[in-house]
């Protein structure tokens, strides 16, 4: 590629000389007879270097130089000033205006050519760096986009798991409520016969003519009904059905709370209620492997946070605990899985602890658990985003801190702290996450 050199001078013979000289050096030469013409060319088709006469009527060389260097897109173009011999003031002013080099007139051809070669070298370096920069930015953008896609995939994946669990939670009561209705229907058809026979008997009594036939009718219908069974089971069937419907109702409400909020907005959130709802929504994920207990500090007031994100944080920490316990069970640990979720009011902070008695986090990976896509699970099982999302929610989203205490073979406790006064109170930027270990 041929470099384009812009030569600016109000003297036509100097321009002609420069055109000839630089043309011989192999450059493409563009000429401008004034400062304003030069600025036009520079902005419409930026050259690779500018040879600029200082003394010109109208916009002089110093001013042209100042404007080029003030423009972020053009400032990388090297400017070589052409100054009159002995005009030191021009040199000082020109360099202060941002010029890269100067040549005094009359100039030696070789010196000028060498100066231009050096300027063009600098420009080439600039171009290379700018190109690399653009490529890096594009790559970073692409990576961010991919991370975002994967995070979304993970979110969908955990929602899919939830959907399966919720189907189970709703189908089970459905099952026994419908069985109980069927039972009540059948029982009633037996009881109905008795009621009719009783009705006939009472009517006969009113007429003063009860005979053996009426009693036989009542006896035969009553024999169809196992009274002690009916008296015992009907109230139970009704009570259990009501329990079932209440459970479905609670699940549906919890799901609404879990996903129904304005996704981004911070409001004052009752943490215990949100935690209970999240535990209920994901019950199927933990009920086989662990017993979950909660312990809420009654002194903890509502906390400013995004309710949907807080639910997701708890979900991810609980699912992580479930995995650690399931892992321990696979490794032959016989103890019963336990997960405890606690809240505590600290001065200025709300603390949430999610404690498990699973495998603990092995020493070598302790520093990596919050890394995107880091996972100890088999490839393809799940993208390792749970704790990364938890970290992002706490640190980036809420200016809180998340850390863990872990002991191999004994379990892990994740400790989240959210600022009580909301985001405005905390000005610290960047990751506040720390990792502490108790060995």
């Amino acid at each position, binding site marked *: 590629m041929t470099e384009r050199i812009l030569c600016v001078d109000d003297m036509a013979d100097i321009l002609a000389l420069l055109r000839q000289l630089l043309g011989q050096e192999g450059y493409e030469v563009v000429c401008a007879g004034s400062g304003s013409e030069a600025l036009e060319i520079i902005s419409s088709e930026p050259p690779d270097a500018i040879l600029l006469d200082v003394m010109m009527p109208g916009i002089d060389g110093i001013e042209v130089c100042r404007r080029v260097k003030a423009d972020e897109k053009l400032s990388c173009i090297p400017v070589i000033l052409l100054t009159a011999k002995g005009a030191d003031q021009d040199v000082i002013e020109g360099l202060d205006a941002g010029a890269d080099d100067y040549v005094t007139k009359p100039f030696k051809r070789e010196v000028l050519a060498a100066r231009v070669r050096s300027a063009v070298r600098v420009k080439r370096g600039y171009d290379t760096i700018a190109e690399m920069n653009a490529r890096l930015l594009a790559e970073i953008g692409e990576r961010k986009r991919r991370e975002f896609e994967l995070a979304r995939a993970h979110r969908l994946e955990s929602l899919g798991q939830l959907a399966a669990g919720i189907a189970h939670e709703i189908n089970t009561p459905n099952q026994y*409520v*419908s069985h109980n209705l069927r039972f009540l229907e*059948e029982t009633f058809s037996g009881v109905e016969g008795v009621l009719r026979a009783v009705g006939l008997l009472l009517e006969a009594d009113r007429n003063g003519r009860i005979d053996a036939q009426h009693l036989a009718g009542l006896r035969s219908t009553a024999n169809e009904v196992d009274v002690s069974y009916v008296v015992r089971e009907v109230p139970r069937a009704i009570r259990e059905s009501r329990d*079932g419907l209440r459970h479905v109702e609670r699940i549906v409400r919890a799901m609404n709370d879990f996903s129904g909020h304005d996704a981004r907005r911070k409001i004052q959130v009752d943490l215990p209620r949100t935690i209970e709802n999240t535990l209920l929504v994901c019950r199927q994920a933990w009920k086989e492997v662990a017993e979950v207990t909660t312990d809420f500090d009654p002194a903890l007031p509502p906390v400013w946070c995004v309710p949907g994100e807080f639910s997701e944080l708890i979900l991810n920490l609980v699912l992580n605990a479930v995995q650690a316990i399931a892992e321990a069970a696979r490794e032959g640990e016989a103890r019963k899985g336990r997960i405890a979720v606690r809240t505590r009011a600290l001065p200025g902070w709300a603390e949430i602890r999610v404690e498990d008695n699973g495998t603990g986090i092995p020493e070598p990976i302790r520093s990596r658990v919050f890394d995107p896509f880091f996972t100890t699970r088999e490839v393809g099982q799940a993208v390792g985003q749970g704790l990364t999302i938890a970290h992002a929610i706490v640190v980036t989203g809420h200016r809180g801190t998340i850390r863990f205490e872990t002991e191999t073979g004994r379990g892990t406790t994740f400790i989240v702290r959210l600022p009580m006064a909301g985001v405005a109170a905390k000005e610290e930027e960047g990751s506040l996450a720390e990792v502490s270990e108790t060995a």
Partner: protein
Amino acid sequence: MSHTVLLVDDDDRVLNGLARTLRGQPYQIYTVKSGEEAKWVLKSQMVDVVVTDERMPGLSGTDLLAWVAGHRPEVVRMVLTGYATVDTAIRAINEGGVSHFFTKPCNEFELSVVIHKALEQKDRLRREKERSNRASDAAAPLA
């Protein structure tokens, strides 16, 4: 000959509902709340059919049925689950040799018909076996 059906589910409301709807059926019903309890019953009692939930704390339904297939192969095995995945269905069929896979909520009529047919089939097999035993017993003295 009286039959026995063993129902396994960790939710006793499910067991109660099943027991109530199957009460009129001509077989004895046992209900237990875990796979471990089910194993204990199967070791000590004659059982013709097992209907088990899949997801339970401790032994899962599939694990229980795999055990039954190994130790009490004559027992007819069925699954009744709240959420069926292809994976659990395949495991139940391959490892547990299940004859039927129900999902909750299941129709009580369908469930009782399937159990009834399974029991009929068992009786027929038993009668045929007895007949062939008698036939070979009868043939023996001639040999």
